[in-house]
């Protein structure tokens, strides 16, 4: 049953795309591409749910030989463990909902069918990536989703900003992919296979465990970090995160599907897949990159006004969270957060899409043009906006690129106008902010914090304490900026009356996916992650704790200090971290994690509350002025506003350097290499002549010229013999014969 199901899941969207491509070649667009693609996705969704039944935690890969040359055999195949199936469901579910949402959102676009075809292609690629059992397969899916991302970001390619953004996205991720490719080359050279899992032959994990049992982990660490480079690019981690906010130039459903829920999470998925070969150094690098990303992106998000950019930076930040979890060894926590985040972030994006759509409708009425691509700043709209005053000079630099229908300074008070959007987005915001117990985000985030703190306490590692601090900070900032978004958009007085009046609730095709996703933002999927029979974190044979790490015996009684445990959850989670079953309290680590969990939960609830409170004070009650804070901490504010100057650095240094280098090479090619070639002729004629010019002219040229002159003169004379009179010729002929005979007789 597994193979046919997986084939259907993969083929359905591929066929939908193929129909579009073939009809395009034939120059006849298939009429109902939207329904075709959506249906394909729904079929895949249903099949994914059926697959849930057949799955075991550690299956055999289903592989076929792809290439064999001599002794090298490269196989391609599927590996379907529980994590894969959960990913399949997440992808197909979000994708289906986005398809449905797009039917409403993209309605009337001139390239409406193409949009759905691209979505289908993306879904196929993403699913292929998820189910692949080997690095090469993952890489193929990896690049294909990159292509789809490119195509979809540049969907409205008439906008120069979109054209730039899609190129930037592709190239930035490519830089990371090269790292991943080098890592793959290292692994392949060592292990002669791309397969991760044991099938017909041993996979990388087994071989790595066998060959590196002696403890040479430096090499493996480098390979691990290189592979993680791919994830840095794709999941928009620092320093390659700059493409993701720009990617918001794409249509909003794309942002929801690709740049929030699925593709960017592929990096996390990849890192999780590589979990068994992560060593302590590579884990630490991953954790630090994740932690720094979480805090950097969150701080940038505070000062954005474009609703989509806020969400984009939020995504980057949350992805950092997941990376942090995996780097800290919390496999389940990272993937758990991936799934919960996929739902509530997709919801947030679709909600923002709903808002933009409402404004967009107004634009298309009032300006009769394609509404999404108004690049010019609507200055009048900003005039009465007190929040914008302080940024006025800055707005000209960066804010001016915000389309007015995405600018939060044009919004406000939308909660009566768009109740469904408001409520669903509020649920998602509560979830992402980590409001306790009834929202899924709380549980996953809590699990990450607990995992990091637990690792810190278990190993007594200063690194992990720092990481925990970063994560906690990020949690606080997240709660703050997310509620800032909600308050600015849905509460208060409408700041732009005209736009406000035109706003309306979205049609049901758009509202329904919002509602479904809102339901999924409650902890309905959590149970699967808590089922120890279902999700088994892989072992990390190469992860050796640092020397000083030890479990001190006195921590056994740790949980007495924080004597609360919510619904017994902390016990379950602690057991989860040490790999035991519910209720087993076998070793010291269990107590450490239990204690860590309690601390983490308390702290996370505290920071979330603090963040929301501050946000409320700043943006709803106006007790404090954001502007004055910004003015007071001007340098810090500037740093955030300019996104830590990453873009400036890349554009000003790296891109410029590359272009300069290419010009240099091209000029080198034209002037030097070609110059040498042309110069060979030139040299013999001129340069050589300058050196031995005299000789050349007098002797060589002289001989040549003399010969030519003699020939010329001789020709001039000899031609007179050619009188044209045949008798002359006869004279010569007969005289010649006589002469010759005479000569021969004389001899």
């Amino acid at each position, binding site marked *: 049953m597994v193979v046919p199901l997986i084939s259907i899941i993969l083929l359905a969207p591929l066929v939908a795309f193929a129909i579009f*491509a073939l009809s*395009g*070649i034939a*120059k006849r667009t298939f009429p109902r591409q939207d329904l075709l693609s959506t249906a394909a996705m729904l079929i895949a969704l249903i099949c994914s749910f059926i697959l849930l039944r057949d799955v075991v935690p550690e299956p055999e890969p289903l592989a076929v*030989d*792809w*290439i*064999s*040359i*001599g*002794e*090298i055999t490269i196989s391609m195949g599927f590996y379907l463990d529980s994590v894969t199936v959960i990913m399949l469901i997440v992808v197909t579910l979000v994708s289906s909902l986005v398809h449905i949402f797009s039917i409403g959102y993209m309605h009337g676009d001139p*390239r409406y069918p*193409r949009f759905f075809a691209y979505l289908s292609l993306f879904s196929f690629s993403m699913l292929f990536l998820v189910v692949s059992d080997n690095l*090469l397969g993952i*890489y*193929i*899916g*990896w*690049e*294909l989703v990159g*292509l789809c991302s*490119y*195509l979809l970001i*540049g969907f409205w*390619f*008439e*906008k*120069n900003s*979109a*054209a*730039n953004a*899609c*190129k930037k996205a*592709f*190239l930035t991720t*490519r*830089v990371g992919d*090269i790292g991943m*490719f*080098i890592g*793959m*080359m*290292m692994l*392949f*050279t060592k292990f002669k296979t791309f397969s991760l899992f044991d099938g017909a032959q041993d996979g990388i994990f087994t071989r790595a465990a066998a060959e590196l049992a002696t403890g040479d982990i430096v090499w493996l660490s480098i390979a691990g970090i290189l592979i993680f480079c791919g994830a840095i690019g794709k999941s928009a981690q620092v320093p390659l995160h700059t493409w993701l906010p720009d990617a918001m130039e794409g249509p909003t459903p794309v942002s929801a599907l690709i740049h929030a829920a699925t593709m960017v999470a592929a990096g996390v998925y990849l890192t999780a897949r590589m979990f068994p070969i992560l060593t302590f150094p590579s884990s630490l690098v991953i954790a630090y990159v994740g932690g720094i990303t979480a805090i950097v992106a969150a701080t940038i998000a505070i000062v954005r006004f474009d609703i989509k950019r806020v969400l984009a930076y939020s995504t980057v930040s949350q992805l950092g969270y997941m990376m942090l979890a995996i780097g800290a060894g919390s496999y389940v926590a990272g993937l758990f957060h991936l799934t919960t985040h996929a739902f509530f972030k997709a919801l947030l994006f679709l909600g923002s899409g709903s808002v933009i759509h409402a404004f967009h409708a107004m634009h298309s009425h009032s300006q009769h043009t394609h509404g999404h691509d108004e690049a010019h700043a609507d200055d009048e709209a900003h005039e009465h906006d007190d929040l914008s005053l302080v940024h006025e000079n800055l707005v000209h630099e960066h804010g001016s690129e915000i389309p007015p229908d995405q600018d939060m300074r044009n919004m406000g008070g939308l909660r009566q106008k768009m109740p469904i959007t408001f409520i669903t987005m509020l649920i998602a915001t509560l979830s992402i902010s980590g409001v306790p117990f009834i929202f899924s985000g709380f549980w996953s985030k809590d699990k990450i914090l607990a995992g990091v703190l637990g690792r810190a306490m278990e190993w007594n590692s200063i690194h992990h304490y720092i990481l925990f601090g970063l994560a906690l900070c990020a949690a606080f900032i997240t709660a703050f900026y997310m509620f800032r978004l909600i308050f600015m958009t849905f509460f208060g007085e409408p700041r732009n009356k005209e736009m406000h009046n035109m706003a309306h609730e979205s049609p049901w095709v758009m509202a329904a996916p919002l509602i479904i996703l809102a339901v999924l933002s409650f902890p309905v999927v959590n149970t699967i992650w808590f089922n120890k029979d279902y999700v088994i974190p892989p072992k990390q044979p190469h992860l050796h704790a640092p020397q000083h790490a030890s479990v001190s015996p006195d921590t056994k009684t740790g949980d007495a200090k924080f004597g609360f445990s919510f619904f017994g959850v902390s016990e379950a989670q602690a057991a989860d971290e040490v790999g035991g079953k519910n209720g087993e309290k076998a070793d010291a680590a269990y107590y450490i994690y239990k204690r860590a969990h309690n601390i983490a939960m308390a702290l996370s609830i505290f920071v979330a509350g603090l963040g929301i409170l501050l946000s409320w004070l700043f943006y709803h009650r106006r007790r404090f002025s954001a502007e004055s804070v910004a003015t007071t901490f001007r340098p810090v504010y500037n740093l955030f506003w300019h996104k830590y100057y990453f873009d400036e650095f890349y554009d000003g240094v790296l891109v410029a350097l*590359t*272009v300069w*280098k*290419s*010009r*240099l*090479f*091209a*000029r080198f*090619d034209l002037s030097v*290499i*070609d110059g*040498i*070639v042309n110069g060979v002729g030139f040299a013999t004629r001129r340069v050589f002549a300058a050196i031995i010019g005299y000789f050349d002219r007098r002797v060589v040229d002289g001989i040549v010229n003399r010969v030519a002159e003699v020939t010329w003169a001789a020709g001039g004379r000899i031609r007179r013999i050619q009188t044209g009179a045949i008798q002359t010729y006869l004279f010569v002929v007969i005289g010649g014969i006589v002469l010759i005979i005479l000569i021969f007789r004389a001899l």
Partner: protein
Amino acid sequence: MLLSLMIFVPLIGMIVVLLLPRESEEMIKRVALVFTLVPLIIAVYLFIDYDRTIAGKQFRHGPVPWIEAFNIQYFVGIDGLSVTLMLLTALLGPICVLASWRNIDKGIKAYMALFLLLETGMLGFFAALDLFLFFVFFELTLLPMYFLIGVWGGPRREYAAIKFFLYTLFGSVLMLVALIAVYLKSGDPGARTFEIPELIRLASDPGHALADSTFQMWVFIGFFIGFAVKVPIFPFHTWLPDAHVEAPTAISVILAGVLLKMGTYGLVRINMDMFPEGMAVFANGDGIVGNSLAILGFVNIVYGSFCALAQTDFKKLVAYSSIGHMGFVILGLAAGNELGITGAILQMFNHGVISAMLFLLVGVLYDRAHHREINGFGGLGSRMPVYTGITTLAFMASLGLPGLSGFIGEAFSLIGAFESFPMLTILSTIGIVVGAAYFLWTLQRVFLGTLNPKYEELPEINGREILTLVPLGILVIVLGIWPHFAIEMFSESVVNLTTKMSGILQAGL
């Protein structure tokens, strides 16, 4: 016999074309099309009928004595590598005839006749089993190419054609010297031979004069420079951009698709197979000399890519990208292991297909807009969606997107090379990023953004042009998904080569 028939059918076609009156242009084109389709059919048959399980030459014809005084024979036969490249040649034949259907405005008769002669030269080159015959076919391609560029080319056609001619001739002379040296060393007077399989056997026979490693090194250099000009390998590459820019579309396609492969094919067939000892000197990974082949590959990749990034002429960009892509072939060959050589050969074939597509696409645009300045376009994506789609496919294949054929060759070459030359390979990956950069940048400047008002009425790609592109597009996709159907053709030959190479390298250590 079938093989000989395939080689000489275009020649018969040339004679038929020459017998037709100059005025009946449609007839000439149809005849040329038919006579290029016949080799294609035979090539497909050979491809299917080829026995993939053995490495030796198949479908032999000959040896038939030709010039008996020097023991020169007519002897043809193919292995998996040849048949793959012959299929490529035979496929590009009719495509190029179709691509020349409308845009050759003068002397169509001479053009088609020369083109058919060229095809015979190319097919014969890939099949020749006699070293002299091999050389004759190699040179046979030169003359038609010279005229095709020099007569039907762009404004600076004479310069380009002469440059191409002289460059190649320069390489040929060295090759000829090496060829004669090999002949003279092959045995006592009277027992000398030009037969390639026999020479390969002698060269690997320890104690034979041909197996001497110093001799092999010098002969290797001679042949290498001859082929390097064709490939082209830095610094012998500057004829390529000029020739491409000036040549008519179909000739660019042949030039990039097949002629460059003649260089790399020669490297595999002669330099690697016949002179493994010489090869080992330059690819044993020991010092500058031992790394020189890989360094050349690396320089080609990075240099070609960066040069391409700076171009504003569409065709020149594609030409420089060819230089970059051929670098992967050199790198893969230098690696000398299964994956490297397989990758190199795949890259040869794939580059033939992809660059052919790219040049055809440039030609389509040039026929409409009459210029190739990348910055002079803009926003064509909304005006010509199908054309944009196909171009995107070709670009993506060329920049090595997995799932399309370009990736496999590139990836395998790199992976193979990584084993032998890790640092150089890592540096070479810069080429991949830059490759993506110039293609995407071009895509943006030509197709994205707002539509240039000059081109609001630009007609969409027509059926004939699509017909030329579709077979190549299918190959790109099929080879990307299931490369094994090409790999299995030559995997046995590759294993042979690698066994030989690794034996020598081990002995050297």
